[in-house]
């Protein structure tokens, strides 16, 4: 247990190691640790922000979906209405067309009947004149009685 120069040797050793640590060990490790701490803090903050953004996006997505759903139902509604409208228009058109055709057919029928009647009347008149001519050839002068005959035709 002698106190001797070892004490000085130990002080020198300590100075050497502390100096080495101060220069080459402590600063890089502490810098790295601080940087990592900052990085982790950044990462956590970014996570928080991302979570918030996600929440906002979810809300926005929900509102967009709602809006789209509303629009879709509006469109369907309008489509339905349009369909009904088209249907009723078509029905009206059809009714009108039918009426027009019926009217036209009626008119045609009428016209044909008139024609037939006219023709019949002519034939009857001719026949009547021929018959009368044969019966009363001598006494009846066609020229004096033509007027009378036409009056007769018109009455048939």
């Amino acid at each position, binding site marked *: 247990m*002698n106190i001797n120069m070892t004490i000085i040797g130990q*002080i020198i*050793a300590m100075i050497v190691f502390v100096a080495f*640590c101060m220069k080459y*060990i402590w600063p890089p490790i502490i810098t790295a640790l601080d940087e990592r701490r900052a990085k982790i803090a950044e990462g956590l903050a970014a996570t928080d922000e991302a979570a918030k953004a996600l929440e906002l996006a979810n809300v926005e997505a929900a509102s967009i979906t709602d809006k789209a759903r509303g629009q879709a139902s509006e469109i369907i509604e309008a489509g339905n209405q349009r369909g009904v409208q088209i249907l009723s228009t078509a029905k009206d058109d059809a009714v009108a067309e039918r009426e027009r055709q019926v009217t036209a057919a009626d008119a045609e029928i009428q016209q044909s009947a008139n024609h037939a009647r006219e023709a019949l009347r002519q034939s009857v008149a001719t026949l009547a004149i021929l018959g009368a001519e044969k019966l009363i050839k001598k006494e009846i002068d066609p020229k004096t009685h033509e007027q009378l005959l036409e009056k007769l035709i018109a009455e048939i």
Partner: protein
Amino acid sequence: MASENGTLTSGEYIRHHLTNLTYGQNPDGSWSFAENAEQAAAMGFWAIHVDTMFWSFFLGAIFCWVFRRVAKKAEAGVPSRGVAAIEFIVEFVDTSVRETFHGTSKLIAPLALTLFVWILLMNTMDLIPVDIIPSLAMLVGIEFQKVVPTTDINATLGMALAVFILIIFFSIKIKGVGGFMGELTGQPFAAEKLHWKIIFAPINLMLELVGLIAKPLSLGLRLFGNLYAGELIFILIAMLGLAQLPLHFGWAVFHLLIVLLQAYIFMMLTIVYLSMAHEKH
């Protein structure tokens, strides 16, 4: 331990284990290795414990090498396990320093780290079975070998003295010579009037000097005492024959605590003393 000259008495065995490998100047002026404890004692101050210096330098170099490797690899990314383990120690020391020392100093944190790891490594040498390294040394012809530097009072007092020099240096740097002297003479007995101040000054100085000198002494002797006693008990256990095995294990487990605790205490007290030196009253 068995030596070439037959069996040793237990007293000789213990004595052999507690003698450093000493190289120094003999009283007749020649330089040589001491062949026994008496010759080593006769060398006085001009001698050096080669084993203490070798092991403390060796362990300090291991500290520097391991931590330097990590310092080179350290980056802000994800650390590997080894790097993380070393960074854990650094962070632990850094927290200890921040909690105790509130000033700014580029020296104190690296100093605390160096002291903690270095002393821890030196103390851990105590867990190597006491006969292994001395026996190997003897095979290559080295008579004495004390492998735990912290069981050498020169090593612990050397470190304590370095801390003491730093205490004085920072006290004067922060407070100035006048402020430091005022601290030494102005308390614990404080007075308003000048003549009382003058009367109290020498009393205060004596009390404060005792306190000041007690710091490095207690720092060095505490570490030395704990480790020396631990080593001594390891040596005593080693003489018990087969019964030493469970005892050795038990004491080693207990000693693990002392190894770690003493390194921590030395570091913390260094920080506390230096932060006291930084404080103005």
